[in-house]
Every structure is written in structure tokens, then in C-alpha cells.
């Protein structure tokens, strides 16, 4: 029988504040690995900031901003083995950049061009399913299927705090626990579901407590602390790979950008809180940590930023240079063997 464990309530942190709270470290992460995490965060941050600009210039469509979520995304994605699959929500649209996908592909996705349809098998990243939480059961089924095939691959599924209200989250989490599926349920708790605050989403004090109801461990981690996210995800993956089943990781952050470019959050959010959160954003925290450690220099930081900007520049140029798609593509890809009689409607 699965053990019903109370979830951890203390929020795990590694990065100190450069003052009273001391810095910790993650065993096994050398300087090169620390800088890989840094570059991944810079790439994501640059992608996000440039996308908002491109949107304002009419060069990409409505875009789901993830500014401030880079620590959650980079910390968890870099903890994965190459064979592990990622099941993203729209908030993790650019997660493929961390697996060698080009900005051209992700930008094409947001431009509504078929070139944005990446090959899920090539990147081990599922297509984004936009309805909330509906991909949780897919991740569970994927992980279970891989286990049946005798593979050691795990699945990591991202979803937001609002997703925990969905039936698909509940059914998927319960399924995962019952089947001991090797899956990590990573909840990006940014405390907003569009305009609905967490307090109106649930009466549970901690989302991680939901894990106990499924008989799986639940942990809470500072979502602004890339090292804490990395460590918690690594632990969950080790557990999954050893056959002990799923873990629920609640990564706490605060959404200090609009939900999407079409959203005006001034109608509902607390501007002062947003200001405070922005000052404590995750990339700056990690930057200062690495400098305290003597790992990051101005030169390295500038190089990471320049490299990311250059990739975005060539990415948008390449995406804009693509010819318009052939409308016939709609018939080519809906079925493996498109039935000829279905073309008429």
C-alpha cells in the first residue's frame, strides 16, 4: 500500500539573501552546471521579454508571459535526464529552448505557423494542450507506458495553481499514485489563475497538502530559487525512477506580469506587492548568488545576455521569413491516413 505522508510545509530554499540568510549549495552541481542553469534562465528571460516586444509590434500573436517563472522552468528542466518527457502548459511554451529547440520554432508556434509544431519525439516535449490540467493524465499515461516498455524514462508535467481545481488534475494525480507511475507533478503556484487569486481557488492552506490525499509526497519549494527547484525535482525524479511513484512539487512564486499580453491585471492585482516581487525576481537572485560564490563575472553575464539576444534576433528573422503555410496541411496531419471522403466537410 502507498504510504500517506503529510506534505512538507516548510518552503525549501538554497539561495540566501546575502545578509542574514546564508547561501546553501546543491551537491553534485559544479561551476559549469551552475552556469548552465544561469544561461538557461537568461535565455528564457530574454525570450519572454523579446516576445512581449514582438507582440506589441504585431509580430507574434497573444502571448502567455512567464517573466519571473524562469527559475521554476530552468531548475526543473535541467534536472531531467535526456530521455525524460516534458508535458508543458502554455506557460512553459519556450521550455524547448532548454533542449536545443530554436527560438524560430517557438516564435513560429506563437505566430500560428505550422513550423512551430515541433516534433514531440525529437525533443521529448509533448505538444502544448491549452485547456487547463488536461495534460496531467497524458503525462501519467506516458510514464506508465514507458514503464511497461521497460524504459527508465520519467515524465514531468507543469501546471498552475488554478489547475488543481480541475477534474483532470485530480484524476491524473490519483491515477499516477495508484499506478506508481514515474511522474513528477510540478505545480507552478504563482497565486493567480488569470484574475482569480489562490484564496478564491481553494480553501486549502497549502496546495502541497493535496498530495497527502493521493498518498504521494508533497513538497514546497521557493519557485524563485532555481537551485531549490533543481534539487526538489531531482529528488522527485530519483524517487520515480526507483519505482516509488509520483511526487507533487509546489513551486511558490508570484505572477508579476499579466496572464497574457491580452490581459490588463491592474483591474485585480496589488501593484505594491507586484513591485516588491519584481525587486526579488529569480534571475537577479541567482545572479547575485553566483557572484557571491565567485562563479559569475560581468563578462560571463554579458556574454549570456548577448548570446540570447542574438538567438532571438535570428529566430524572429527566420520565423518572419517563412512562407505562408499551405492550407492543405490541415488534411495531411489530422489523420495518419486521411480519409478522402472527409475533405468536403
Amino acid at each position, binding site marked *: 500500500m502507498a504510504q500517506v505522508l503529510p506534505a512538507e510545509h516548510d518552503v525549501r530554499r538554497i539561495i540566501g539573501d546575502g545578509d542574514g540568510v546564508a547561501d546553501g549549495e546543491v551537491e553534485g552541481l559544479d561551476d559549469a552546471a551552475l552556469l548552465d542553469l544561469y544561461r538557461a534562465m537568461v535565455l528564457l528571460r530574454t525570450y519572454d521579454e523579446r516576445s512581449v516586444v514582438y507582440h506589441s509590434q504585431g509580430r507574434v500573436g497573444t502571448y502567455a508571459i512567464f517573466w519571473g517563472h524562469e527559475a521554476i522552468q530552468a531548475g526543473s528542466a535541467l534536472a531531467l535526464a535526456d530521455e525524460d*518527457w516534458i508535458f508543458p502548459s502554455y506557460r512553459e511554451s519556450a521550455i524547448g529552448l532548454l533542449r536545443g529547440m530554436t527560438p524560430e520554432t517557438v516564435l513560429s508556434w506563437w505566430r500560428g505557423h*505550422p513550423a512551430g*509544431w*515541433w*516534433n*514531440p*519525439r*525529437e525533443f521529448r516535449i*509533448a*505538444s*502544448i*494542450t491549452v*485547456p487547463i490540467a*488536461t*495534460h*496531467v*493524465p*497524458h*503525462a*501519467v*499515461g*506516458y*510514464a*506508465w*507506458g*514507458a514503464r*511497461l*516498455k521497460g524504459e527508465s524514462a520519467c*515524465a514531468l508535467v507543469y501546471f498552475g495553481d488554478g489547475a488543481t481545481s480541475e*477534474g*483532470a488534475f485530480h*484524476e*491524473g494525480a*490519483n*491515477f499516477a499514485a*495508484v*499506478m506508481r507511475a514515474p511522474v513528477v507533478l510540478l505545480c507552478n503556484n504563482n497565486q493567480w489563475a488569470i484574475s482569480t487569486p489562490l484564496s478564491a481557488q481553494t480553501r486549502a492552506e497549502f496546495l502541497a497538502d493535496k498530495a497527502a490525499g493521493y498518498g504521494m509526497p508533497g513538497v514546497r519549494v521557493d519557485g524563485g530559487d532555481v537551485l531549490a527547484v533543481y534539487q526538489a525535482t531531482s529528488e522527485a525524479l530519483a524517487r520515480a525512477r526507483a519505482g516509488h511513484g509520483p511526487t507533487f512539487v509546489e513551486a511558490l512564486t508570484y505572477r508579476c506580469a499579466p496572464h497574457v499580453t491580452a490581459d490588463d491585471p491592474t483591474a485585480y492585482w496589488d501593484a505594491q506587492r507586484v513591485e516588491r516581487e519584481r525587486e526579488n525576481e529569480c534571475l537577479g537572485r541567482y545572479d547575485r548568488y553566483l557572484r557571491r560564490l565567485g562563479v559569475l563575472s560581468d563578462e560571463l553575464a554579458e556574454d549570456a545576455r548577448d548570446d540570447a539576444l542574438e538567438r532571438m534576433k535570428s529566430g524572429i528573422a527566420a520565423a518572419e521569413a517563412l512562407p505562408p503555410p499551405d492550407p492543405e*496541411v*490541415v488534411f*495531411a*496531419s*489530422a*489523420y*495518419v*491516413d486521411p*480519409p478522402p*471522403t*472527409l475533405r468536403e466537410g
Partner: protein
Amino acid sequence: MPALTYREAIRDAMSEAMRRDDDVFVMGEDIAEMGGSMGVTQGMLDEFGPDRVRNTPISEMAIVGAGIGAAVSGMRPIVEVMYQDFMTLAMEQLVQQAAKHRFMSGGQIKVPLTIRTQGGAGWSPGAQHAQQLEAWFLHVPGIKVVFASTPADARGLLWSSIYDDNPVVFFEHRTLYNLKGDVPAEIDGIELGRARVHREGEDVTIVATGRLVHEALKAAEEAEQDGISVEVVDPRTLLPLDEETIVASVRKTSRCVVAHEAVVRMGFGAEVAAIVQHQAFDYLDAPVERVGAKFAPIPFAPVMEEYVIPHAEDVLAAVRRTMGKD
């Protein structure tokens, strides 16, 4: 030729696929020790073990959703949804996810998932366990829909469904499980999208599905005594539909009755009528008739249920109307 019941034929297709292919497994509610609420998977747990004959929590959404994930991982899952009425709980996974996954990856992944489900009236299961909802599914590009009416068709079509690389919804009719019929000695697939002409005739074509195939055959026998020669066509696959066979039959007979157990309004019969009037307009000697359930929930009380659902006499009456003999 060996004879199998409809239930045994379905089990045979699954078991044989699982013997030949490690990627095939079944998952659903109460399908292991109990053998499924309709007994279809009986004995499979003993042969294949609990990993491949997997009991699940009562979670239709996750059964279909996890089936999608497993299919993407390279498996060929067969999931059982106990009643097609409960497919309503899994519609998001089917319509938004299974049907769209290949499309939204630009054709770069496939979802070889088979969803087996059953339903139908005629045994008084009540309003929430008796519906025929197949028309809902026919409106969704990206999936295939199969509805078998005989043991041989059930086995061959299920075999093809399992090995089809698209998501397939496979409907079984509750009242047909004990129906016995000959099946080929060697298991083989029946191409999806090919109708079967059960009986040839000259005067009227009946296009019938599921239980109504058997009601149509009874009606055809009676009509013959009246001197009316009836052809009975079972499309077997509703999506994609074998329009060619249906239209060729109507061009020959000049009259058409469509019969299904689901409600008439906005049903499968409406689509067939539209196809026939468009492709055989000049051949028609009478309006296309539709036979189906009255537009009401299926009642629990047997006498009320009988009143709502269609029978052979309703099909016969429609045949006679097309002949101007009502």
C-alpha cells in the same frame, strides 16, 4: 468456421493482439478479476497479468487521457469505458486531446488508441446507461468511429482498430453480446471504412447500424412476404463512412431507409439522407426515411423503454412508406 459470441469475438481480438504484440494492453474499470461489467475481458487477467490487464480507478477522463499518453509513448492501448453514457465524462480527452494531438504536432506523432465502449437500450438499464451517443463523435475530425453488429465484424473491426494509428472509438451494443456467429478460422482485420451488404435486394435499401441491423433483417424478411425486396447495408465504420456502397445500393433500389437506435433528430441518419439526396437525387423514387428513437430520455420502465426505442416493425413501416404502401 468456428462460431463465437459477439463477446467472445471481441475478447479474441484483444487477446490475440496481446499475444502477438507486447505493446498492446487493456485498461479500464473492473476489467481484471471481474472481467469487465459485461464480461468481455473475462480470463484475460489470468493470461496476461495485472500490468497488461489493468484495473483503474473510476476516472473516465484519466482512463482516456492516460491512454493517450501511453499511445504517445509507443504502446497500443485498448481502454474500456464501461458505458458509452460515461464517455460524456471523457469527452474533453477525446475531442480536444486524442483527436487533436496528431494535428497539433504537424503529423509528427500518432495516437494509436482504441476506446472500447458499449451501450444501448432493450434491457431496461435506465436513462443514464442506455443511450446511443455515436452521432456526437461523428462531428469530430481526427478520430475514427466503429460500430460492429456481428461477431465476425466485431473481431475483424476491433483488430483493425487496435492496429490503426489513429484514435478509434469502438462501439459495442449491450444486447448483442450473446449473439453467436461464424468467424473466420484465422483472425484478420476488416478494413475500416468498408460497409457490409448483409442481404441484397431490389426495391429498398436499409442502412442500419448496431442492434438495428438485426431489426432491419427481420423487417426485410417480413417485407419479402409482401413482395418487397430489401437490401440491408451495415456501414460498420461510421467515420470514415463508406458512401460509395450506400450510394451504389440506393442507385440500384431507388429507395432508402436509415435505421439506428439513437434519436432520429440530428442523428447519423440525417447525414446519410443528405449524402443520398446529393449523390443519388435523380434515382430516388421516395423521400429518404429515418427510423430511430423518439426524442426522449430512455426510460427505466420496460414498457416505456419499448415505446421509445425503434423495433423491426418501425423499420418495416418505413420500408412500406417508401413503397407507397403505408
